[in-house]
């Protein structure tokens, strides 16, 4: 029973929503709107679950004095401080303390994390981007052309470079991307079908 009822719900909902997509009738639209409301309601339950899970993990770390438990203390303090400060909607307006923390601490931290990529890419390019064989050489040449073609100095070197870079993006790149997308799409459709038909059960913690 524990297995059959959830599987039955998933199968019926999956089949109904698939059929609904092709029926432009007010009843079908009403059912779709109801389903959307249900999705929002169910989704909201995930939020307190996530917060509880985070608090539990951090508290356990502190209790066990695990490696880096000090960071767990900072995480909890930050969580409750931001929750407290952000409790009122007005806090999101410019000039408030909440916004100052966001603007002058959170944004620079996030931007710094992302900008570190430039340093790692430069280091990786120097150490690992090698023309070891024909395929690697093609990738290397393509990367150099695109890098040059995407900057103004590339245009100054040769007006042909941006066109070549554009060709690489719109022909070989697009062909590869399209193949990946079609593969992903077919994979997603078949997985969805397996879930609806009850063949794929790993989402319920089953084999």
């Amino acid at each position, binding site marked *: 029973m524990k297995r059959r009822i959830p599987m039955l719900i998933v199968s019926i909902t999956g089949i109904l929503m698939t059929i609904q997509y092709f029926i432009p009738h007010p009843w079908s*639209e009403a059912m*779709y*709107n109801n389903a*959307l*409301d249900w*999705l*929002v309601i169910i*989704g*909201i339950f995930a*939020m307190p679950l996530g917060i509880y899970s985070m608090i539990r993990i951090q508290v356990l770390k502190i209790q066990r004095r695990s490696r880096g438990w000090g960071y767990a203390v900072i995480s909890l303090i930050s969580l409750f401080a931001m929750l407290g400060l952000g409790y009122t*909607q007005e806090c*999101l*307006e*410019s000039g408030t303390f909440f*916004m100052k923390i*966001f*603007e002058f601490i*959170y*944004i*620079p*931290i*996030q*931007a710094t*994390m*992302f*900008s570190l990529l*430039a*340093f790692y*890419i*430069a*280091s990786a*390019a*120097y*150490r690992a*981007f*090698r*023309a070891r064989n024909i395929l690697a050489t093609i990738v*290397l040449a393509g*990367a*150099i052309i695109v*890098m*040059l073609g*995407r*900057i*103004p*100095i590339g*245009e100054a070197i040769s007006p042909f470079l*941006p066109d070549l870079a*554009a060709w690489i*993006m*719109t022909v070989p*790149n*697009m062909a590869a*991307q*399209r193949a*990946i*997308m079609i593969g992903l799409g077919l994979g997603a459709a078949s997985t969805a079908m397996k879930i609806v038909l009850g063949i794929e059960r790993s989402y319920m913690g089953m084999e």
Partner: protein
Amino acid sequence: MMNTPESTHLPLADRLLTIDRRFIYLFVMLAAVIPFMFKVELDVEVTPEVMSVYSFIDKLKPGTPILLAADYDPQTQAENGPQAEALLRHMFKNNLRVIIMTLSQDGAAMAEMLSTSISAEYNKIRGEDYVYLGYKPYFGIIILSIGQNFRISYPADFYDTPLDEIPMMKNIHNYSDLACVIQIGGGNVTHAWLTNAHERYKVPLAIAVTAVSGPQYYATLQSGQIFGLIGGLKGAAEYETLLRDEYRRLGIIARAIQGMNVQNFVHILIILLTLVGNAAFFVKKRQGGR
């Protein structure tokens, strides 16, 4: 690896291959910082994918409603920020009515800053010329629900004003009332806009994404699922080039064009590093090393 006294006696190729990575970091830092000291206005060639976004917006009649989804977060602010600013300036310049929203959990405050700062440049009135809806979680559901009615997910705007009391929203209910959707962001949210908004409700869609995400959307551009693509800082610089007179009139620095100067240096540095690394690799290989 650190340079040891022994390593200084190694052949040049070996020394190059074992260079301390902190030198590379230093070069990157210098390449990123030095260009900011020089004010250079570079010419940026405008690509057809950016031009089509500009042309689409430019042809809309004043008062046409348009949806700007600022779904980016602080991580990609350097690229998506100038894109959003340029797009919003173009929309306000043409007196379009803009609905701004975000589906990024870190984007609510940033989109609010964007809407208030750019609207102030054009003396636009909130509720009449533009609306800021704020952030709602579960992007897939929100995008789908807008297809039915904005009011399902957004009964009120960011400032808690009910949508029915906002004059601009009087005759705007769903995608069919909009000229198009311009989405700024990348990743799963962009895919959700493609599948849930464009494919299901056939709303014209254009996207502005980071340079890393850009290549994967050329297929959707060619298939006509999106009518335009602004990729990375280069795309933002192209848009600013198209709005150059407007930026001059406002006396505002074109941030993306300025940033292209930095990209010039960093790209050249990465190309040089790659070439030097390969040269050292081949010399070493010829000498019989691995």
